[in-house]
């Protein structure tokens, strides 16, 4: 196991992972952030697209150990992001989703288009969306939704563009401490000499531990979730309510 520290949706997380654990498995199975979907696990379908250091990347072919020190943003962390809010509205209005399986990845890519290519036309939007597969909509609604949101941001609200200061290496990479040691999955030796600064409450338990005891799983305030605008969020609000209810029940039933 290899100890890593990263920030997920603004929270410090420290975890001990097998080197072969990819980022999406860490997020879904250990942190229970299931908004990042998984399908092809070979970097083709795009459903696992999330933000690493603010830039879109594939979670299924990015191993968690490669993201030591990185800032990860999942779809759960963009709840109140103005671009995502606009995109949610546009996806609802233009029928940009049916089953919703591709939607988290689509939203991540669409957000990147709005930030990076404010002048994109339909052809460019289609090129940029080509790394995200949708099996329901035939893309027409999705493309229209992205164009609508693009227009909205072109008109007024200014958004922060791609940070010019970003490093030239892969997103998520950090300078290594030298003299790194082996960290075999059966050898619990530290791979990184970096100091642990994450508080104990954010430590991610091993898979066998009860995940719902961690701060991270419950960090979203259910009250905030259900008051989000109706329409696009009706279903989302319902799901959050159901989850909150379930959490209460399971808390009560605990010895």
């Amino acid at each position: 196991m290899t100890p890593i520290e990263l920030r997920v949706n603004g929270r410090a997380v420290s975890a001990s992972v097998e080197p072969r654990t990819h980022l999406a498995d860490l997020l879904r199975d250990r942190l229970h952030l299931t908004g990042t979907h998984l399908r092809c696990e070979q970097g083709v379908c795009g459903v696992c697209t999330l933000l690493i250091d603010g830039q879109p990347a594939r979670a299924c072919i990015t191993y968690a150990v490669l993201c030591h020190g990185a800032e990860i943003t999942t779809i759960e962390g963009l709840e109140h992001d103005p671009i995502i809010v606009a995109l949610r509205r546009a996806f609802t209005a233009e029928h940009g989703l049916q089953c919703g399986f591709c939607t988290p990845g689509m939203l991540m890519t669409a957000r990147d288009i709005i930030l990076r290519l404010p002048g994109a036309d339909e052809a460019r939007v289609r090129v940029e969306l080509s790394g995200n597969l949708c099996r329901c909509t035939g893309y027409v609604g999705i493309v229209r939704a992205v164009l609508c949101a693009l227009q909205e941001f072109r008109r007024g609200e200014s958004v922060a563009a791609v940070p010019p200061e970003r490093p030239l290496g892969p997103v998520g990479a950090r300078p290594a401490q030298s003299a790194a040691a082996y960290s075999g999955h059966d050898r619990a030796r530290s791979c990184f000499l970096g100091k642990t600064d994450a508080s104990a409450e954010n430590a991610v338990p091993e898979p066998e531990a009860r995940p719902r005891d961690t701060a991270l799983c419950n960090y979203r305030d259910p009250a905030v979730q259900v008051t989000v605008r109706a329409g696009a969020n009706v279903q989302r609000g319902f799901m959050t309510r159901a989850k909150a209810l379930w959490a209460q029940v399971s808390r009560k039933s605990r010895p």
Partner: protein
Amino acid sequence: MKPAAFDFVRAGSVAEATRMLITADGAVKVVAGAQSLGPMLNLRLVQPRVLVDITGIPALTRVEEDDEAVTLGACITTGNIEDGRLPNRGLSMLSAVAMRTAYRAVRNRGTIGGSVCHADPAADWVSALCALGAQCLIAGPAGAHCMPIEQFVVGAFETALGPGELLEAIRIPRLSPGGRWGYNKLCRRMGEFALAIGAVLSDPARERFRAVIGATGGKPIIVTDARLLGHGGSSTGDAFAVDEAAVLRLLDQAGVVDPVARRQHVVVLQRAFDQAVPL
């Protein structure tokens, strides 16, 4: 769809990485962005015992330039090349190729050095850098040395890297002000690995007129005097009509027998010539 278990080490310097590569017990692979290696690992097509992460080595994102060439560290991502964040005078081909390589989410992690070392015949960087006449700077236990990329890529997924050696940087010669390039590829879906790649470099001031036939299934076919592929057109004058028989002879030698693939290579190469040799 999960990789076989492997150990993981991070190198802090090039010297440390080469040491790790030599001392690792069992199969060892270098990893940077993991955008080519990741799918191979997940599909268990490769099952290394140890991965050596080189993305923490500051020297591998270095950029150097002089009048003749730009030297890019191996860990520089395709996304940064696409955005033109590097010196690109005389190298407009780089960002144009980067823009059509895979998808933005992949380009944000995929590195130019990783793509070359992966040596997938259908990879854009392999063919494009062959056309540009790039040199690979290799660091190893015996010190650093340099070789042309066409020698570096030995075959499909095979490079000339020896034990403990690491691709440190790629030196890419600039085109002269009058130089032109052409790059064309055929994909069934945008961003996929290509079925056929054609790349042409026409730089009369440096007396270079090269053509590359890529995505053949083996190492790229490089024609250092591209005039041999034509019906007598020139590098400076009229449009260049590809001599189909000449191309097919080269494809024969490379073992490309599928008639559809052969036709695709001829068409794609002609398009690359059309772009590089203006009417």
